[in-house]
């Protein structure tokens, strides 16, 4: 209990410059890229995983000669690769495994088309996905923590005066 009180008093005694500094330091830590140094080992790998798609109509008729557009996860608007299905509706490509995520493949022929979504690599979140926390969210969360600490301090400060 004694230690807890000391901690609270410490916060109350902070001058405004110190509070600003604390916030700045907190934010700086939140946005600072973390790097861990250990014994230097670099492990690289290459993976040639060929993807083959087979496009058919609902009836089973192959989409022979259909246009194919392949989109990498980190650029969903510009085709990474374009091509044409063969006579059996087949098309093959080898995605860049350095760009993990969901690869989108669009197939179109004579006014009909569809898309298939193929996970590649360990991270299968889409490039434009909103997974994780944005910098704004992290900033808000850190502000919440600081506000909680100051609020608690103010509460106990008022109790001491009364």
């Amino acid at each position: 209990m004694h230690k807890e009180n000391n901690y609270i008093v410490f916060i109350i005694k902070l001058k405004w410059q110190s509070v600003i500094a604390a916030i700045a330091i907190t934010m700086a830590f939140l946005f600072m890229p973390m790097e861990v140094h250990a014994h230097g080992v670099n492990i690289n790998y290459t993976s040639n995983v060929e993807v083959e798609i087979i496009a058919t109509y609902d009836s089973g008729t192959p989409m022979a000669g259909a246009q194919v557009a392949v989109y990498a996860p980190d650029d969903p608007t510009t085709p990474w690769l374009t091509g044409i299905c063969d006579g059996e509706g087949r098309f093959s490509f080898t995605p860049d495994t350095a760009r993990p995520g969901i690869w989108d493949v669009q197939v179109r022929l004579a006014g009909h088309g569809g898309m298939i979504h193929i996970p590649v690599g360990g991270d299968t979140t889409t490039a434009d996905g909103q997974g994780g926390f944005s910098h704004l969210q992290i900033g808000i969360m850190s502000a919440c923590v600081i506000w909680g600490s100051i609020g608690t301090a103010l509460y106990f400060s008022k109790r001491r005066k009364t």
Partner: protein
Amino acid sequence: MKFPIPVIALSILAVVLAGCAGGGATGKLQFYANGEDFVRQGFVSKDGWSISFDHVYITLSDIAAYQTEPPYDTSSGTGIDAKTEVALDGVYTIDLAEGGEDAPPIMVAEVSDASVGHYNAISWEISPASSGPAAGHSLVMTGTAEKDGQSIDFTINIDEECEYLCGEYVGDVRKGILKEGDTAELEMTFHFDHIFGDGELPQDDELNLAAVGFQPFADGADAAGVINMADMHLVHVGEGHCHCACE
């Protein structure tokens, strides 16, 4: 100059509340309806009728766009499970034949503060209009059909109510990818060659085999006895198909 702690604390709280109320980055999401060149320029049906449209009124409601992960599969027969949804209030009767032969798709409405992300699914309903030129009908097609010197002024009314669940737009460009402060489009596409067939395609083409053509209407058939909207595949997102349920 000294700032008391309460002032600093309240300032931080204001920032926090503003951040919470903001709801994240947004942009403008626009919804379009497109009857394509079949409606704007006319076409020849599978049974040789040259069709031109004066008006094609379609009444849209319950329009919503979604961000789904994984992407919605229209063949699943299930509903759309979305992490983000943007819905349009209201009912919209659109004339898909509006404008000239080269008129662009018609904007139905827009949402100016849609959350950023990839809107890879869309749903809407068609239902009878309560007022206006299409009152009582969900789809009204008026125009002229000509064949072998014969000319018929037609009005074809569809009264069915249908719900359409669609995945991502399929076309020359990808649509629905909304970035902060930017504008993205979504399109509800209607393929009228699926009803009348396409004279430029072989008679045994799957599209023509499923289409009813125009001859039944030239013979005076009622649309309700000829057209089953659930089987027509009228509705698409670009070239992508949709799941359809009609009453």
